[in-house]
């Protein structure tokens, strides 16, 4: 998607790939569970997963981010696969709580997974929602955070830090896991461990671009622009890593 257009949220795809792979590969039940994509620009990862699972046709990937395309660069109400998504950051967890409350009222056993990014934790609404979910002991709610230490202006820790992140979530009353977000087994173990009557958060520590050596250090991590030469180098590097 990003290589075809020469632009897009490539870094977010790199940091969150394993999180989505584990969630959709082993835990999320399509048509039953609910998925909230709070940072809409992560849609690129979701589209890749959807194509891999056959939930959308691969041909759609080629029009990612183009005028009139189904797969918009920042997801919207017409984006497939998500029950709720936000472009304005910090709002997704509140909506996820609405789903979790509705499931509790209906006793339907549907689990709500909310994907959040670390940068949006600077928005106060996230913490209003965190407080509420713990108070109401929403066991049917799991938050996955891509902690890639990246926001538009640079590393989160250099803007207004949100650390110590795990301590904050624990203090807010959540069952908290702090894991290597590129370690598939660690993510799997966190999601699989028995529930404890509380909402759960999995903080996935990830790297946004540094695993790709071909990308120059000056690359804008939030929104990557690629030329054909760089694209070829990155593709070769990724193929070698996966081989």
């Amino acid at each position, binding site marked *: 998607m990003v290589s075809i257009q020469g632009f897009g949220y490539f870094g977010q795809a790199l940091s969150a790939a394993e999180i989505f792979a584990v969630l959709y590969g082993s835990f999320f039940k399509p048509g039953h569970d609910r998925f*909230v994509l709070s940072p809409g620009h992560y849609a690129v990862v979701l589209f890749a997963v959807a194509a891999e699972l056959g939930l959308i046709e691969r041909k759609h990937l080629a029009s990612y981010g183009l005028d009139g395309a189904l797969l918009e660069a920042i997801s919207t*109400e017409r984006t497939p696969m998500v*029950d*709720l998504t*936000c*472009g*304005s950051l910090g*709002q*997704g*967890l*509140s*909506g*996820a*709580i*609405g*789903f*979790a*409350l*509705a*499931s509790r*009222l*209906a006793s339907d056993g549907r689990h709500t997974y909310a994907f959040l990014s670390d940068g949006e934790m600077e928005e*106060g*609404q996230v913490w*209003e*929602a965190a*407080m*509420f979910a713990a108070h*109401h002991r929403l066991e049917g709610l799991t938050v996955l955070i891509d902690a890639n230490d990246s926001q538009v202006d640079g590393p989160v820790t250099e803007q207004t830090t949100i650390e110590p992140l795990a301590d904050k979530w624990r203090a807010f009353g959540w069952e908290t896991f702090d894991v290597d977000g590129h370690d598939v087994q660690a993510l799997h173990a966190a999601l699989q461990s028995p529930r404890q009557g509380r909402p759960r958060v999995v903080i996935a520590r990830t790297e946004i671009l540094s695993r790709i050596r071909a990308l120059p250090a000056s690359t804008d991590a939030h929104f990557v622009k690629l030329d054909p030469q760089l694209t070829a180098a990155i593709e070769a590097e990724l193929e070698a890593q996966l081989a």
Partner: protein
Amino acid sequence: MRKPPYEIALKPYGKALLELAARRPDVFCLGADLTRQTETDLIREQMPERFINVGMAEANMIGIAGGMARAGHTVFVNSFGVFCTRRCYDQIAMALAYPKLNVKIAGFMPGVSSPGGPSHQAIDDLALMRALPNMTVFDLSDAAEITQAVQVAADIPGPVYLRLKRGEIPVIFGEGHVFDGRRAHVLSRGADVCLIASGMMVPATLAAAEVLEAAGLGVTVVNSPVVKPLDAPSIVEAAAATRLVITAENHSVVGGLGSAVAEAMAEAGLGRRLLRIGLQDTFAESGSREFLFDKYGLSVQAIVNAAWQALRPGTEVPQAPQQQAEPGTYAPV
């Protein structure tokens, strides 16, 4: 239609919401720490399984309401109008209005009916809510309107903003008054001036009309509880039969009823002078309803002055009689 001082009703919204919830299992109620003040103590006490107090977190409340609405609930969220519009505008826009979800926002204590000063006075809520695509906006004046508006709002697909007086609610209209969520009501007809009002300015407008008619002017009175979508055909038709149009709202003159009427008249090509009674692009201050409505030009006399000075310039302005409201009754300032 009754005459002031009006009898009062207590908690018409809270009672109607409780009755609605009893009939419809999809109805749920969220509050933000102002439960008694928003009349939702009734549902909290009688149907606690349908009520959650989110606490002082309006943005979170709107987001939760959106999620519940996506799951099939019709959600009423409640606070003071100033808090459940300004504090969470982006949330209302993105989590409710854009996806057109069944969430009804009840905003109490409109305009300068709050003694609490600018922090508690919703003077721009109509403008904010009116600007949002998919949003329906009601500014309600009377117990019969409020009672019916709860059901009407629940039946409208999409978000609705209900602007509600807090506390003692006047009973202005008779038993047969129908609020359908669409129409403006022409309450009287006269050829000189068309007074168009919503919400708490309806009683003042009716009283002003009486004073003006006694002084020899023909007065048309229009009650327009639906600020969006405005019943433009009815309003333009009523306005076209007069020489002067005056809107009256307990709100800034920027962006509310007056602006909506101006747009409707201009788009219809109706060239009539328009005067807008309301807060003249200013924040107010703390004080009693009597003090604030008088000082900020929302009184019966202010409407009389505007009409008379436009139509009979240079002549003595008739004086509105002082309304004495006994305890347990309501009269406009």
